[in-house]
Every structure is written in C-alpha cells, then in structure tokens.
C-alpha cells in the first residue's frame, strides 16, 4: 500500500501558475492561422508563446520539488483533467474575438499583480520566475486593456459584443483570487501574496478599464469556481485531447 506524500505547498503554487499559463497559452494558440487580421494572428501566437514559456518554467520547478524525475513536458502532457488546477476562466472557449480579448483582459489584470506579488516571494526560484514573467504580463495587459477600451467604446456592434463577452466571462474572474488553505499557508509564510490584496488590485483595474470602455460590470451572480480543485468544465477535456494526443499516441516521442 502506498500513501500519497504531501508535497510542500510551493509545489501546488508552481503547478497552479503553470496550469493557468499553459491552458490559456493553448487556447490563444488556437487562433494561429485563424485570427481576424494578420497582426492579431501574430499577436496571439506571441502571447501564447510567452504563456507556454512561463508554464515551462513553473513546471520545471514543480518537477524539481516533486523530485520524481518528471520533466515539464511530462507534467503538461501526461496528466488527466482532474489533475489540472487552472481556473475555469482560461479554459473557456475562444468564442468570437470579443470573448478572446475579454478573457485575456480579465486574466492579465490578475496575472500582473499576482506575478508582482510573487516576485517578492521568500522562495528564490518563485521570485525569479515571477519577475521574469511579470515583464511579459505587463506587455500583455497594456495590449488587452487597450483593446477592451477601443472596442467597448467603439461602434454599436463592437460595444454589444464586448458587453456580451463581459457578461459571459466576468463570473469566472473571481476564482483567480479565491484563496484556499494552500494559498493562506503560502501567504502566511511570505511565499506568495495575500490573495485578498491581489483581488482588490484585480477589481480596481477591471472597474477602471470597464468604465473607460463604457461597459457595465454585471452585478450579483455567483463566482464560477472549481478549477483550482480539479473540477473543470467539459471544455478542458477537449483542450487536453488536442494538446496531449501526440504524447498519448506515441509515448516518449521527441521533437
């Protein structure tokens, strides 16, 4: 009989940060060759590349903590849906371009303050990865907030589409800053920021940009959650099927 070994919560942190980055990176990369204009095709591919690169750094660290000899690729490509810890937001479908941009904005507005908080972590490796990723996230947020404003405050059509995207996706935003015991333990030990502080920064940014975009935040409604605990929407299974089929069909295949 084997007993599951309890790993340091830093492992969960690295896995969660990596899963969020990986799944959103995979989602935006679906636009490659399909985006509405060439510049956006390139932009989405580049954002996806940054996120997948960040996921690799987080998974390398998670693998080192687990000390079971797993590579970043194995962590990304050989786990099933229940083992993924990403928030439900990042697995939501691309939808129309308004949905893609709104999802990106809601994510970026959390990602940047979270990474800046992690850059002050007492864990040196966490701090290094976060500081590196924060530079990229700064650029992503500049771009996504500009888009939300120019399309929200754009034509009647673009405004309505951005509002519909906000209504559909906003209920998912809260999960990113919903603390569980692991988060509270990490914050108490100075390894990760207090998520209530990140939640305030996240909301302040969302409110400022949504107001400038002449959009309305939906009020009330429950936070859609569960991803962090491995309880996902049906979308994740399809993402994994697309992302993992090669390693599943040809175990050990290398580039």
């Amino acid at each position: 009989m084997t007993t599951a070994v309890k790993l340091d919560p830093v492992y969960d942190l690295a896995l969660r940060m990596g899963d969020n980055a990986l799944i959103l990176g995979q989602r935006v990369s679906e636009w490659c060759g399909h985006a509405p204009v060439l510049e956006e095709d390139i932009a989405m591919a580049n954002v996806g590349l940054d996120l997948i690169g960040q996921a690799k750094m987080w998974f390398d660290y998670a693998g080192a903590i687990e000390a079971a000899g797993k590579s970043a690729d194995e962590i990304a490509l050989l786990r099933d849906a229940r083992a993924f810890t990403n928030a439900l937001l990042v697995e939501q479908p691309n939808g129309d371009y308004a949905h893609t941009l709104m999802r990106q904005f809601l994510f970026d507005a959390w990602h940047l303050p979270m990474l800046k908080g992690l850059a002050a972590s007492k864990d040196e490796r966490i701090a290094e990865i976060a500081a590196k990723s924060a530079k990229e996230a700064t650029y992503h947020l500049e771009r996504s907030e500009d888009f939300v404003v120019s399309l929200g405050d754009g034509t009647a059509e673009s405004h309505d589409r951005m509002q519909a995207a906000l209504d559909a996706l906003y209920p998912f935003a809260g999960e990113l800053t919903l603390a569980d015991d692991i988060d509270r333990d990490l914050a108490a030990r100075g390894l990760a920021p207090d998520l209530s502080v990140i939640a305030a920064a996240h909301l302040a940014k969302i409110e400022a940009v949504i107001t400038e975009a002449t959009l309305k935040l939906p009020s009330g409604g429950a936070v859609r959650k569960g991803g962090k605990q491995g309880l996902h929407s049906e979308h994740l299974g399809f993402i994994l099927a697309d992302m993992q089929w090669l390693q599943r069909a040809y175990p050990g295949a290398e580039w």
Partner: protein
Amino acid sequence: MSAAAATKPSVDDIWRWLADVPDPEIPVLSVVDLGIVRGVQWKGNRLTIAVTPTYSGCPATAVISLEIAEAIRRRGVDDVKIETCLSPAWSTDWISDEGRAKLKAYGIAPPVADARCVGDLKNPIVECPHCGSAATEQVSRFGSTPCKAHWRCRDCLEPFDYFKSF
C-alpha cells in the same frame, strides 16, 4: 589531439569566440551583442557559460544554447556546460551600443534606451531605421519574433520592425 587539456583558453578568449556566435533569428547580432551571455567561468576543467532567455517562450533559446556549446567545442573545449540563469531578468538595456548600431544598419529600429520595462515607455519615440524620421507609428504590438513590434514611418512610408524596449 585536443589542445584544451594542455592550455586552457582564457575567459577573455571565450568571450571573443562568443562574439562570433550569431542570434539564430537576427543573425546580424551576436549572442554577446544581445546581452544574454551572463557569465563565463572555468570550474576545474569544465567551462560553464550562463545564458539568460530573452522572452520565456522564445523558440530561439534552445537553439542558442546548442549553438554556443557547438561553437566552443569546435575550438577544442569539450567539457562545456550551458546554465540557464533567470535572474536578473534580461533587459534590452543590455544590448551593446555595437549591437544597436548593427540592428539599425540591418533595418530594425533599436530599443529605446533606459527602459526598465515596457510599461515605463508606453509611447516611445522610435526613429525610422530607413530615413531617420521620428514621425513613426506602431502598427501592432507584436511582430515577426517575440522581441519585435511592427511599426511604420509616416515620412518614407516604409514599414519596419522595432526591437521593443523590454
């Protein structure tokens, strides 16, 4: 017979060799111009070279490490180890003056200097690498590689790549 065992090349020599290793995406720049080689050190008979990635997902990163190791081995040093160093995070402020001049001559506007981060310079004034005009505008925040953005000149009307301050 390898000469390395008898006479270890000096660290200065190694840096000179590295100055001949081109970036695979922007071959006009060497890995030294780009500022990604962060350290060269002998540890006994093993040569350790610390390299920092530009963007975390840049596909050129793995190729760069291979090319650096290959260039060193070609000179007769067999025991070479490439270490990835994440901190401090790479900045375009580390691109040498020579590198900036090479970029411009190649038709890529060099990064506006002293930018600790892109967020500090949301609207940089970028000179057209073709005609030198400052009447330029951004077409897209992203370009042909992760490190570049797509710009155009309103005077000579040419499009160009801008190596983003980062």
